């Protein structure tokens, strides 16, 4: 299965280990989590483990009789990273916080729902539902896998909430607690349930009314007398009443709303038809003239509701409307007179001193008090290079400390930080006037007026012919038969099918209407970092500088071609011996600076190399350490020259150089630069045939040349773009009448994503943080954007064709009705035939279009298991 690169690790953002595409299996792998392990330091019987954490969890599970965990899938565990200490979760014992977090509490028993992103397979579900065996204070636990949630019942007297969270994280399932989790305890399940109930009631009535109507069609009267006809008629009227009042209630409401706003939506002719159907039927049955059209009425409502359920397939696991609060942690470490304490963010006050460890987020605008700040602002600005900050410097909320531990002092409350104020900008709160100007509504406007005109004309004709009874019947019949069932079903089933097929290819749409807008997109705006370039695997190349030949020809040729992207030279950078590589790997593994991480990832792991002594990392300069009896320096030119190691000129190539010196001798330079996703070139060429393209980046211009070549002369390239610049750019395009699609990731694109007609958020992990958007796309699917747009255009074409088919049926039905000879039997046949044929056509054609569009075909099955175990 072509799944995206997913690795179930906890706190993936803060983790510096190399990302592996799939969880490999086999010997040399940890029995618990499947990570490669070295040596037999952590071994029990014949099983090997990568770390003490995994071993501890394994033993705990075995002791508690949970050994079955390992039978459910191979290496099902999650590596325990960092300290899962009790202190870390102590803040959860705060009663004020608990009130907002708990789903339920009666003093004796509490229930809490945790989000657990690392849950990924059947074995996880099993283990999390068997938590009660690990602690006597835990009762039932239920997993909702699509939402990655577990609801745990516990006795607060026996286990504290913090203890429960610590227990979960100690076995590798660290709960994700963000600011957003507060105060949303009530699940929005009621609309969902109401829909099911409405369909159920309509289906029940439909089946029974059909049953009771068949005798009338077959002429039961001839040998049973009129008793049954009256009885069945009354029963039908009674059965249809809940359909009319309860199941169809949404149609009445929205039709009324439309009439009040003096617009015509599709719901208006539907409501008109329903009223005509029930009115005519009641009249016929009460006066004993006929059997009415109640089977058509209930069938119509049932089919319409089925279409709605089909279309409103929501991806519950994926939140499309997130804001910065879901990005913030729930707690931070505060320095107080009594020592360090973990406190909820909501209790922070101006003047508090916070301790930020590596990988932690700055929760509020603050001043750096102590330590060397290396702040990664990529979520706020899009610039991927971290910035150095000195004590006394101002820090903005949303940045992430990636160096050593620092202390900061808060200068503004959390809710008034730069980031929060950015979010409060009116553009971020813009709401599109959704759903009124849809394809269906444009057609139904013409349709409705036409039907009313025909109905009036038919009635007028029979009146002038001197047959007023027939005139009234014709008027009602036209409204009945023209009830736009097929019209109403075309769009839901076409877009619903397309949405479903896209979800199977891991492209998630907020709702089906997004497809209509996708089909109209003229201009596509890309963000650079994380969208066109991959965020993690930046290309690393090594340029040896020592002695005679400075640059091997093949490597310089590659460096000159920016789109080729010098690939990672796994294990064999020319010019370095295996021993030297091992030393560089060792040294780089000590640091969390992105450049070091990239270099370490590009090298073959050499865990056998001697450990690093005297390790020092000078922020903004470089690293040094002693490995074996060699002194290794890796860093900037200025730093090495300052240390008395002259550096010869480097070959001109894009990227950040890191110069390597061993024992005082400069050997060469590593160049690290962003690489394009595979197939980006083809994607741009493909898209530029139909669309205008633009690139907006928060980064500096260091890679301008590369992108100029990629986008050609027609493309707009803009660098140094702030979030507001991006938003303004999109708005200017829209003012020029363009339908704009924005493709981006991160908070810095959030405004532009919201402003654009279609905002596409690119994520590396489905379910990971993404800003509010219309489409969520995993990074690996970015090259398929062309196919997605093609499918959207095909889908709108299919909807139009379906309208044509339904118009055909209507022409037949209306001409019969206008003649005044419509019978319940004709109606009962025509209505389902037209609906079913349109539904089949819509679904079939869309599936065919999707197959031809070139989207990757994923295997059938629950789409949310794509990131499951091997």
């Amino acid at each position, binding site marked *: 299965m072509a799944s995206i690169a997913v690795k179930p690790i906890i706190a993936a953002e803060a983790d510096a280990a190399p990302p592996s595409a799939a969880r490999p299996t086999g010997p040399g792998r940890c029995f618990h989590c499947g990570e490669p392990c070295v040596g037999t330091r952590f071994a029990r019987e014949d099983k090997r483990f990568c770390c003490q954490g995994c071993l501890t969890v394994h033993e705990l599970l075995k002791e508690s009789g949970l050994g079955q965990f390992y039978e459910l899938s191979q290496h099902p565990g999650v590596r325990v990273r960092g300290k899962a200490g009790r202190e870390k979760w102590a803040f959860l014992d705060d009663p004020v916080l608990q009130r907002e977090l708990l789903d339920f509490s009666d003093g004796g028993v509490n229930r809490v729902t945790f989000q657990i992103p690392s849950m990924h397979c059947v074995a996880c579900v099993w283990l999390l539902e068997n938590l009660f*065996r690990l*602690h006597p204070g835990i009762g039932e*636990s239920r997993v909702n896998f699509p939402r990655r949630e577990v609801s745990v019942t516990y*006795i607060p007297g026996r286990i504290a909430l913090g203890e429960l969270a610590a227990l979960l994280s100690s076995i590798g399932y660290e709960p994700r607690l963000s600011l957003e989790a507060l105060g949303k305890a009530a699940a929005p399940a009621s609309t969902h349930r109401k829909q099911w*109930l409405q369909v159920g009631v309509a289906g*029940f009535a439909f089946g029974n009314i059909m049953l009771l109507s068949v005798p009338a069609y077959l002429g039961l009267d001839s040998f049973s007398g009129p008793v049954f006809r009256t009885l069945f008629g009354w029963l039908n009227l009674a059965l249809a009443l809940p359909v009319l009042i309860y199941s169809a209630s949404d149609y009445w409401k929205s039709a009324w709303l439309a009439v009040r706003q003096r617009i015509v939506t599709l719901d208006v002719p539907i409501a008109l038809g329903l009223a005509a159907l029930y009115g005519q039927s009641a009249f016929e049955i009460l006066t004993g003239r006929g059997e009415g059209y109640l089977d058509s009425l209930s069938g119509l409502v049932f089919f319409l509701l089925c279409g709605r359920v089909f279309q409103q397939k929501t991806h519950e696991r994926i939140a499309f409307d997130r804001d910065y609060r879901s990005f913030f942690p729930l707690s931070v470490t505060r320095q107080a007179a009594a020592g360090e304490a973990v406190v909820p963010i909501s209790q922070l006050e101006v003047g508090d001193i916070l301790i930020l460890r590596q990988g932690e987020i700055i929760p509020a605008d603050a001043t750096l008090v102590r330590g060397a700040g290396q702040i990664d602002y990529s979520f706020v600005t899009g610039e991927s290079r971290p910035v150095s900050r000195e004590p006394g410097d101002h820090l903005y909320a949303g940045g992430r400390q990636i160096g050593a531990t620092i202390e900061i002092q808060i200068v503004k409350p959390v809710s008034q930080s730069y980031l929060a104020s950015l979010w409060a900008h009116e553009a971020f709160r813009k709401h599109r006037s959704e759903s009124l100007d849809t394809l269906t509504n444009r057609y139904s406007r013409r349709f409705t007026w036409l039907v009313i005109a025909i109905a009036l004309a038919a009635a007028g004709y029979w009146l002038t012919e001197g047959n007023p009874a027939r005139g009234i019947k014709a008027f009602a019949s036209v409204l009945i038969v023209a009830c736009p069932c097929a019209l109403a079903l075309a769009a839901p089933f076409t877009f619903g099918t397309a949405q479903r097929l896209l979800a199977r290819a891991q492209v998630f749409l907020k709702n089906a209407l997004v497809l209509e807008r996708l089909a109209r997109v003229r201009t596509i705006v890309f963000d650079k970092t994380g969208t066109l370039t991959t965020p993690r695997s930046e290309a690393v190349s090594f340029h040896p500088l020592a002695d005679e030949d400075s640059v091997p020809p093949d490597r310089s040729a590659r460096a000159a071609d920016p789109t080729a992207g010098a690939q990672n030279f796994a294990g064999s950078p020319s010019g370095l011996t295996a021993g030297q590589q091992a030393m560089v790997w060792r040294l780089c593994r000590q640091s969390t600076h992105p450049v070091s991480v990239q270099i370490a990832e590009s090298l073959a792991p050499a865990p056998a190399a001697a450990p690093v002594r005297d390790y020092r990392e000078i922020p903004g300069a470089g690293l040094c350490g002693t490995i074996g009896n060699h002194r290794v320096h890796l860093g900037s030119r200025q730093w090495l020259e300052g240390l008395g190691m002259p550096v010869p000129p480097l070959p001109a190539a894009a990227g950040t150089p890191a110069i390597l010196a061993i024992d005082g001798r400069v050997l060469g330079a590593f160049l690290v630069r962003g690489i394009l996703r595979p197939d980006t070139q083809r994607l741009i060429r493909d898209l530029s045939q139909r669309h205008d393209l633009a690139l907006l980046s928060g980064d500096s211009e260091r890679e301008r040349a590369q992108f100029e070549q990629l986008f050609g002369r027609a493309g707009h390239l803009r660098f140094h773009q702030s979030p507001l610049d991006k938003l303004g750019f999109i708005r200017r395009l829209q003012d020029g009448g363009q339908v704009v699609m924005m493709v981006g990731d991160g908070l810095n694109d959030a405004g532009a994503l919201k402003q654009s007609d279609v905002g596409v958020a690119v994520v590396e992990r489905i379910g990971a943080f993404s800003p509010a958007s219309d489409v969520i796309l995993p990074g690996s699917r970015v090259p398929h954007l062309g196919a997605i747009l093609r499918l959207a255009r095909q889908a709108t074409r299919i909807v139009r064709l379906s309208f044509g088919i339904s118009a055909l049926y209507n022409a037949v039905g209306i001409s019969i009705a206008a003649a005044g000879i419509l019978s319940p039997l004709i109606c009962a046949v025509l209505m389902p035939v037209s609906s079913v044929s349109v539904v089949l056509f819509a679904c079939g054609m869309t599936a065919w279009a999707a197959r031809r569009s070139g989207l990757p075909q994923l295997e059938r099955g629950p789409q949310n298991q794509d990131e499951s175990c091997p």
Partner: protein
Amino acid sequence: MSVIILLIAVSLTLALGFLAAFVWAVRHGQYEDTCTPAMRILSDDQNPGKTPSPSQPSNQAKP
């Protein structure tokens, strides 16, 4: 022919019973998560004697 009336009464009662069952199921969240139960069934319980109940403390507890 009165047997037909009886039959109709019985069949309608039965159908109403099913509708009531459906309403109950929807109200109790049976349609909320249709994915996890499919996974839950894959792991059969080896010691069915133990039921998750907070009032039955397990001796093998080890936090």
